[in-house]
């Protein structure tokens, strides 16, 4: 356990010095600052005003940026370390492979999740100072969603880093995975339904297997509990899971996917050549 925390700490310190982390933090901190600066807390859309509106926009932007950022930065760093000989040296020290792998994952999770969370927390605290009402239930649920989503894509990234033997291949694979998920949000799904005359249930099930879609739908749920904006698909979701069930699914499913991918990555890492 000591070595796991030591490895996590090592990864945190390495990441804090990396350029990608600086950009990452600036992007999310900058988004919140910009949303405030452009007066989004005072705009009214779908009946939302104040911090709720800002959080809704922020979570949508997170959905667009967070997965690709986590995927690319993690595969670059892990596969890059292997290529550059970092693994050769650090894995010659008496650290167990489980402590190394899970410690690295934990360290990376901290640096990936914290800036996103702190930006949201900062916005909420600033709202308190400005006497704007803070929707704490929304804040907590979105925190959970972001935590689950960061874990999900980190697990996928660790699996890809283990499978790919070079940075280029790992980066390419990460991009393809992200693109596939993005296309399955709407475009391919619509195509499947139209071309294959698939049952709506099948299309919805495909959509619900996509962590990006789950994240998007769960984020919608708080301000559109009946999922009216989704159209007929909402009936399938509501009939199958109900509103609360889907909100729980939105937290649990990405977490399960992330854990499964990370575990598969760990077993492959343990089985193959390390450097």
């Amino acid at each position, binding site marked *: 356990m000591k070595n796991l925390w030591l490895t996590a700490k*090592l990864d945190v*310190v390495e990441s804090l*010095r990396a350029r990608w982390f600086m950009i990452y933090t600036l992007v999310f901190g900058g988004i919140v600052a910009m949303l405030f600066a452009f007066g989004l807390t005072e705009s009214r859309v779908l009946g939302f005003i104040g911090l709720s509106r800002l959080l809704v926009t922020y979570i949508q932007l997170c959905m667009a940026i967070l997965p690709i950022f986590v995927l690319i930065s993690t595969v670059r760093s892990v596969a890059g370390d292997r290529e550059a*000989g970092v693994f*050769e040296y650090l894995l010659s020290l008496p650290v167990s*492979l489980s402590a190394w792998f899970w410690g690295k994952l934990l360290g990376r999770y901290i640096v990936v999740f914290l800036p996103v969370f702190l930006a949201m927390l900062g916005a909420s605290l600033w709202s308190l100072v400005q006497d704007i009402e803070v929707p704490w239930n929304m804040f907590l649920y979105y925190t959970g969603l972001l935590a689950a989503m960061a874990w999900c894509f980190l697990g996928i990234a660790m699996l890809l880093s283990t499978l790919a033997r070079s940075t280029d291949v790992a980066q390419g694979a990460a991009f393809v995975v992200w693109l596939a998920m993005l296309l399955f949000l709407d475009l391919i799904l619509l195509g499947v339904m139209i071309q294959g005359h698939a049952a709506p249930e099948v299309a919805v099930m495909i959509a619900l297997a996509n962590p990006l879609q789950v994240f998007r739908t769960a984020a919608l749920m708080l301000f559109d509990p009946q999922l009216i904006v989704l159209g007929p698909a909402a009936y399938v979701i509501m009939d199958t899971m109900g509103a609360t069930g889907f909100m729980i699914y939105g937290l649990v499913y990405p977490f399960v996917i992330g854990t499964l991918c990370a575990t598969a990555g760990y077993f492959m890492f343990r089985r193959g*050549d390390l450097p």
Partner: protein
Amino acid sequence: MIEFKKVSKTFKRNRVLDELELTITPGERIALVGSNGAGKTTMIRCLLGEYTYEGSVAVHGLAPRPNRQQVLGKIGFVPQLPPPLKMPVGQLLDFSSAVCNSEKSRMEEIAGRLGLDVGKMRNQPFVKLSGGQKQKLLISIALGRDSNILIMDEPAANLDPEARQIFFGLLAERLENNTTMLISSHRLDEVSALVNRVIELDRGKVVLDDRVADDVSLTGMLACRLTLRRPEESIAKALTGWNFRDNGSGLEWQGSVAGPDRLRFVGMLSRYVGILTHISLDENGGDQV
């Protein structure tokens, strides 16, 4: 005791180790030589449990991969190319000493003896250090921890003569503990005086396994005098690098050479053989470290 039994390693279709058989007894100091691609680094990585392989490798009876912590807890390793670690020097020392259950102060003390001021560079990223500084720090970590096997890949390549002399002295201290040393190099003259056994690899097999005379003291110094036919800027620069002094005319030079460094020194001199008129190396005339 380290044992390689029919160890083979293949990358795609390229067989890098080919049923390698080797036994190393405690206390042996081995030069692992061979051309590029002979299998030296692959053999070391198998020994460190970093590669999977066919056959078996055992360190004190334990396979390195499933018993990583026990096996690697006994092995100090210096890689040929320092890893590009972004972490600060202090963090690297903290991490290494903590996972090796060793005292950081011992690593710092060895770094100090090699001429590194760890206190000043504590917050400096490891990757920003010079090649020599990185090598010294990695040597300090390998020698500053409890280990009875040292694996070093071209360990002295980036060191200046003074640091090399101190490094040889540090290795000499390890001889008292019966430490096994495996020193990899593609040039025998770099390591020949450090070792008592030479193993040459070629295409993944041992093609030469030779015991060598073990008379060179790791701490011994040779007093050296040189006379040149005429002053020459290039040799003057090279000799100054070895901390030699001249008598003012640039013709007579004197200094000390560490015993294990004698071949390397003579190798350097061979480039200027046309202007050398006298060389003397006196084993009893140098200072002891």
